[in-house]
């Protein structure tokens, strides 16, 4: 009888550990999900590469794809935000540049953070930025207008069936909370977002 009880306690302890491990697994799903997003392009996060990684011989001279620039401002942020030109035709493999205009409409200095998203998701795998205003927070003085640049390359391996893609940015108010910043930094290093 007692032997049984001892064994039962052992079993219970092991199972308890499994439960605790699964709680941890719930948290582990966060980085796993981010890696998966990068590999499969779920949710359209974009990659970052350095200028030197772009090889000019990759350029496909006969192919043009349309890149659209969509802009959103979270209602909590008193800014306006527009792309200078709504769309561009670019050659895959070539570095291209787009300009965005942002204005702080309020009477305070405000910090914003732009979050990019690409549609279709699959295209995000081939969409790499060498320079982007979304890599860092942007601070705008009251009433200030700023022109911001994004330099990007659409990879020449982009599947043929993709002819149009949209690069969408949403500007959010950057939280002053330190904890948030650390999370952002962690996430960015995971996602290679800069």
């Amino acid at each position: 009888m007692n032997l049984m009880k001892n064994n039962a306690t052992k079993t219970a302890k092991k199972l308890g550990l499994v439960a605790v491990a699964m709680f941890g697994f719930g948290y582990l799903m966060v980085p796993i999900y981010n890696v998966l997003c990068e590999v499969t392009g779920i949710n359209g996060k974009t990659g970052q590469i350095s200028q030197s990684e772009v090889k000019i011989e990759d350029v496909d001279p006969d192919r043009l794809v349309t890149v659209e620039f969509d802009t959103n401002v979270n209602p909590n942020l008193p800014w306006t935000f527009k792309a200078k030109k709504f769309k561009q035709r670019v050659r895959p493999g070539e570095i291209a540049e787009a300009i965005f205009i942002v204005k702080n409409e309020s009477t305070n200095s405000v910090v914003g953070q732009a979050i990019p998203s690409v549609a279709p998701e699959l295209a995000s795998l081939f969409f790499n930025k060498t320079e982007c205003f979304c890599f860092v927070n942007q601070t705008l003085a009251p009433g200030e207008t700023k022109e911001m640049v994004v330099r990007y390359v659409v990879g020449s391996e982009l599947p043929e069936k993709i002819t149009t893609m949209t690069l969408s940015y949403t500007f959010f108010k950057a939280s002053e909370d330190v904890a948030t910043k650390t999370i952002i930094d962690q996430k960015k290093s995971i996602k290679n977002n800069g």
Partner: protein
Amino acid sequence: MSEAVIHDDHHDHKPSGIGRWLFSTNHKDIGTMYLVFALIMFFVGGAMSMVIRAELFQPGIQYVDPQFYNSMVTVHALVMIFGALMPAGVGLANWMVPLMIGAPDMALPRMNNMSFWILPFAFTLLLSTFFMQGGAPAGGWTMYPPLVLQLGDGFPYLVFAVHFLGISSIMGAINIIATVFNMRAPGMTFMRLPLFVWAWIITAFLLIAAMPVLAGGVTMLLTDKYFGTAFFDAAGGGDPVMFQHIFWFFGHPEVYILVLPSFGVISQIIPTFSRKPLFGYTSMVYATASIAFLSFFVWAHHMFTVGMPLTGELFFMYATMSIAVPTGVKIFNWMATMWRGSMTFETPMLFAIGVLFMFSIGGFSGLMMGITPVDFQYHDTYFIVAHFHYVIVPGIIFGIIGGIYFWLPKWTGNMYDEKLGKLHFWISTISVNVLFFPMHFIGLAGMPRRIPDYSVQFADWNSIISIGGFVFGASQLILVWVVIKCVRGGEKATDQVWEGAHGLEWTLPSPPPFHTFTTPPKVTDATAHS
């Protein structure tokens, strides 16, 4: 009757008064408490669904504010899933697992007591939110951010209630596994275990693997709201869709956590009333295990519309379709058990047959929704409300009710009123179909779910549905009456109770003494299930 039983009778002293229940470590008493609690919650959740059906009886808003309506929808689901279905399953396991495997009690009786008493506490937390600023949770039982973060003061109560419910069910699951692994009577090998016990082992493993993930998810919600993390907040680099992945990684196994105990019950009932051994015991065990395993790879069929890459959509479509295979095997095995048997149709058998027919209907619509391109139309409509209510009400609740009728004579020592039982079955079956079948139609025709008001073309079907709902709700009072009547007295039950019953639990007296199998019985091929 074994020697052990006669021996037991000598020290059959139960504690008396309220202390018997508060501090109980007896698996039978705790089982009873779980079942009574589940029945109460069934009526609490049921009352909320009556509010929902009353509001939907006609187009226009007649009785409640839309926000309160959303709370009703949300809390109805939470109460039914975590308060009625899961505790009822654990209650049956508490009562029957030790009796079926020849153990004197559960392996960890004190933990058993605790895991039960956490439940009323957790539901007090949850239901108290109705009286708070901002009201009760109203973002759906799925708790998707950012919507759920808009909840007022009730939010932390929701999170902690989920934590406690998770802890309670994990403790229950651990106890069941520890019991079956360590306390089987000599000769009770794994492949001789009754299928109900097998179903519960697999359920318990699912619980241990899935519930902590939900706990993790809601903890992230809590820190997102109060401690500045940004797991699900796009502004901080997070992603609200990730919560859906975490939730459904728990959520799909959860639906099998709910249904497997019911499958276990009907695997006991059908052979008994067919007077024939269960067909394909081994394949039943493997089918159940593979359903459980596969259930961890299909979760994203709940979120096809979030916008996944093609490969993801294809993977989850194929995985979902593949679950139909082991599920089919189970259905066919039950049919083969009935085939060329010698069937009688007492109430438990009626409910079991009801499960076979109506769970299948839910399975068919499940298969349809697993087809991704068409699910883009079905998703978040009344079609899916029809689907999961078919699998949950006539699929799971009917199984549990069948189990209650099946074992009630064993528990109380008295036969229940068969006529009332049959009446309960027929009214429930007719009304449940009037209630849920037309939901397929309005869903296909375009009525979204979780809405307090609808455009007028849906009015006619909705009134019929509401009538079905009221009749179904009222007819459950028959169950309460049957149980009360049976506890108070009636024709005495024999030890075997049912002509075709086999297994250790039927060798005990009806009702069984307070302590059973203090000396373990010997199990041989002849006394095992088949």
